[in-house]
């Protein structure tokens, strides 16, 4: 059997080993740094989700009102668990021919924009829901 000749194989020096450790640490740190960005993203997504439901809430409640009682609402906070979320309502008269352009009015159409913002993640976007309310009676 042939003897392994370990004596002639040079090992790592201390410096080399420390350098290797430093490089591995930097790689690991980078990996962790990437992972850390996932947490605020998850929070942001959850807050967008909640805002979509809150915007739906306001739009359903506004549509259940009568045409005349639809009014602007300045920034107002939601209550309870959602006290750090806010909404506002802005409406304009529009003509039946062009529902996206505000006119002086009065007309039978109100274009209502509901904005919802806030939540724990500050850079999370504002959710806007736009709907149309009409006073035209369907017979």
């Amino acid at each position, binding site marked *: 059997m042939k003897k392994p000749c370990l004596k002639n194989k040079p090992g790592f020096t*201390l410096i080399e*080993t*420390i350098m290797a*450790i430093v490089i591995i640490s930097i790689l690991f740190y980078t990996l*962790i740094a990437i992972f850390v960005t996932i947490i605020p993203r998850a929070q942001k997504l959850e807050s967008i*989700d909640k805002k979509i439901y809150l915007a*739906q809430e306001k739009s359903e409640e506004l549509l*259940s009102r009568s045409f005349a009682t639809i009014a602007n609402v300045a920034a107002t906070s939601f209550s309870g668990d959602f006290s750090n979320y806010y909404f506002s309502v802005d409406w304009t008269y529009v003509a039946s021919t062009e529902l996206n352009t505000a006119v002086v009015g009065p007309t039978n159409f109100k274009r209502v924009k509901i904005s919802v913002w806030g939540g724990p993640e500050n850079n999370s976007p504002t959710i806007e829901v736009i709907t149309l309310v009409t006073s035209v009676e369907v017979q």
Partner: protein
Amino acid sequence: MLHPLKYNNSRNGFTLVETVILITLVSVLTVFLGGFVLTFSRAWLSIQGRDTAVGSARFGMNRIIAEIRTANTTDGLSTITTSECSFTDIDGQSIDYKQNGTSLMRNTDILLSNLSTPEGLRFTYLDALSSPTATKKNIRAIRVWLYVTAGDQRVTLESSARLRNILQ
């Protein structure tokens, strides 16, 4: 036969001091990295738990909202309390939403089994000016809260459904 002492005499290996320094370095690094790994695996589990809870809450909320919208006129609402809502839909089918322990019940079916206790489901009945009302014929919209738990995480969703089939 190999003689172990022969190799220890080699100048290419580590000296005792070098080995001690290395072991100390590696230990310190392991403690730090281990701490990081532990923290982030906990964070990951918590994100997953929240994700599950949000998913459940969305599923439950979408179902409740979609069915309340089909409620048949205001008189079709039979039970209207903060914890239970039952009504008849446009096809004449009776639908009842309430909480039973940690379960969200639709009639006798369990839709979700991770509601928070004691309050995991709440209803508020709103009139045409979005003020709470207890009079069935004045109800125009129903506001729903769902509180869902996953592990130590609690997720709340709030939304409303307008009653589409009111004959005035």
